[in-house]
């Protein structure tokens, strides 16, 4: 059938005097709409962003090409440096504890115990609402005279804690709220990984006399290598891109005193509040480079650990 079709196409080509459209290329034509869509809405904006990072652009006037000036200026831009440090602190707080705690939760829920599914469902609840809703809920919980203060105050008698209005507490609050929602999500990924470990291997370790800790360290963890890398990479990328939490939960979008200003929020401020789209694009490019570097580093380290 296919041979006949090819012969027919060849004949047709001869008659029309031009080469036929090879049937093998038809697949490409079918995916072309998606490729065009992807190119227009994903690839083009990325390259356009790179171009904008080389311009002085206020969105209201035409962009002016200024070469690498935006990047040179970032090196001495106090706001950018503040946001960079805040982001790095946030990333540490939003990755290491999440990695460890979500693994611990997965190990717990990997055990069989009464009511496990119910507890697991409750534990998973923070993943369901959108980030904006989570931020709004926590805004109420973290009111200076709210539930969080009452809980702490029950121990030490303090009746007011400015959780979101203190330059030390506010960044910590961002990390806690982020981790609260992220841990159950990553727990599911760990659980999927744990499910994939063959029971025979664990049984063999038990027969060899391995205790629970030894089984985890020498059997589970090495076999969870790819899951571990996935969790680390996703958690890092998510943390670097954090925006909604700081936008909604923090005082004055990044306050107090810029203590919760992260790079994602800075891009928004530069682009849409300060009319500095060229700087916003430059920060985005730097973010892209950092995330790419950290992810590649994680993948490289992951290849060498085990």
């Amino acid at each position: 059938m296919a041979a006949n079709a090819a012969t027919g196409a060849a004949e047709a080509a001869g008659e029309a005097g031009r080469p036929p459209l090879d049937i093998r290329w038809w697949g490409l034509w079918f995916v072309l709409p998606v490729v065009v869509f992807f190119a227009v809405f994903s690839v083009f904006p990325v390259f356009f962003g790179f171009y904008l990072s080389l311009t002085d652009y206020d969105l209201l006037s035409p962009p002016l090409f200024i070469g690498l000036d935006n990047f040179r200026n970032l090196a001495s831009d106090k706001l950018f440096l503040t946001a960079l440090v805040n982001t790095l602190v946030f990333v540490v707080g939003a990755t290491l504890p999440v990695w460890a705690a979500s693994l611990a939760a997965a190990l717990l829920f990997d055990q069989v115990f009464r009511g496990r599914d119910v507890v697991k469902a409750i534990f998973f609840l923070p993943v369901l609402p959108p980030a904006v809703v989570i931020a709004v809920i926590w805004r109420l919980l973290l009111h200076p005279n709210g539930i969080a203060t009452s809980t702490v105050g029950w121990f030490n008698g303090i009746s007011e804690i400015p959780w979101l209005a203190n330059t030390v507490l506010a960044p910590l609050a961002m990390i806690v709220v982020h981790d609260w929602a992220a841990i159950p999500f990553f727990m599911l990924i760990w659980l999927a990984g744990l499910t994939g470990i063959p029971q025979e291997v664990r049984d063999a370790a038990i027969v060899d006399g391995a205790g629970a800790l030894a089984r985890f360290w020498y059997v589970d963890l090495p076999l969870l290598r790819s899951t571990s890398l996935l969790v680390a990479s996703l958690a890092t990328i998510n943390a670097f891109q954090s925006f909604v939490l700081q936008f909604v939960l923090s005082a004055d979008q990044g306050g107090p005193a810029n203590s919760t200003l992260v790079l994602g929020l800075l891009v928004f401020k530069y682009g849409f509040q300060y009319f500095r789209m060229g700087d916003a694009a430059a920060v985005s490019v730097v973010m892209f480079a950092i995330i790419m570097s950290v992810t590649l580093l994680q993948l490289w380290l992951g290849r060498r650990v085990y």
Partner: protein
Amino acid sequence: MRGRNATLKSIMPHPMLRAFAMLATLVVTALSAPVAPATAQTTTIKVWLHDHPPRVAIDKAIVAEFEKANPDIKVQYDVIPVGEYGQKLLTAFASGSGPDVFMNSSLLVSQYQSAKILAPVDFAALGYADEKALTSLYLTGFDGIRFGGKIYGLPIEVSNWVCYANNAIWKEAGLDPEKDFPKTWEALPAVMEKLTKRDANGVPTRRGFDFLWPNRNMFWFVQSSMFHQQGKEMVDPQTGKIAFDTPAGQRAVQYMIDHVNKYRLGGPQYGDSRADLLAGRLGTECSFGLFGIPQMKTANLSYTIRPAPRFADAVNDNGFDAYAFYMMVNARSAPANQKAAWKYARMYLDRSVELFEKAGLFVPRQEVLTSPGYKSDPNIGLIVDELKKAKFAPSIPGHDQVVDILLKGRDQMIQGGQPAATVLPAINEEMNTALARARARAGG
């Protein structure tokens, strides 16, 4: 031709598949066929206003009436949620698809004017002989949209803040807001302390008075008002520089610091003071304007309106600064669209009484000031008396960045406990650098 059919048959042997391909070709051809052009004389103007539910019905009626009166003009009216309005406007202008008619706050118009987005008012298209013929119809409202002696928009809402007292809380404290409301900033803390309830740690469980801290522009407004009371300008008109490192600036800022740290009456850590007043959790609030009256009535709150306090040695007898929302026309629109846009704006202004009485949008126009709605509540007169004395809060390019720097300094002083003497000069320099950069970019 036969060969091509043979190829199609060999590729799509199923007749249904071939039929589908031909149908798809027909649809694509039909869709790509040129559409019959609109009548050459018809002008379509795009009008973008932000959402305000009580106003939308009036907007639609105005559009219908306008199109009927001007059959050669079509209006494409879009209502945009308040939270998305600024961003959408900005991206539309960036992509060259901005509206012909749009609105914005007096605080942000400077940026648009600097970028030459705003068309100066076309008095002829509006149907007025000149600027005086237009502005003489208003008590005030154009100072926030005047640049280089020209006006670039028409006020569709003018506001100024006054103080609202919760009568029940004042009565409970044995006070009468009519008689006991403080006339000066200096007298305010002692009176408000009487309304404040505190726990054993001295933490307010009910505040007597607080500022609207979550509002980014509150600090800008209140500080500017305090500058004006001292006979000074927050943005020096001579040098064009921000003047927080002056005695007037230090005094205004110190008042806010003392409110939080010395008198402990409130602070940025608390919630929305407007919501707290409406919920009966706050004794006094000073960030409602005329628009507050229907909200008090809806909340079933017994209230008293009082003028904002002044400094005891105030040079000017002004309360809080004024601000406005303006209807403006896109200078990049075609001349015919601009003319049509100003005609539309005129019809909008001519409905000022209806907009005030049904949508609560106040413009101090003569017919509004003599309307039954205006006369129905004596409090309105008190608010408008304050408006007569108010100056407009300064509008500068890069407003949001400058305000962010100011708020950072505020946090450093109020929450970080850093002395104003060191913070103010530093943030003042930072604000002026940001302002100079915004002006330079706009000038370029």
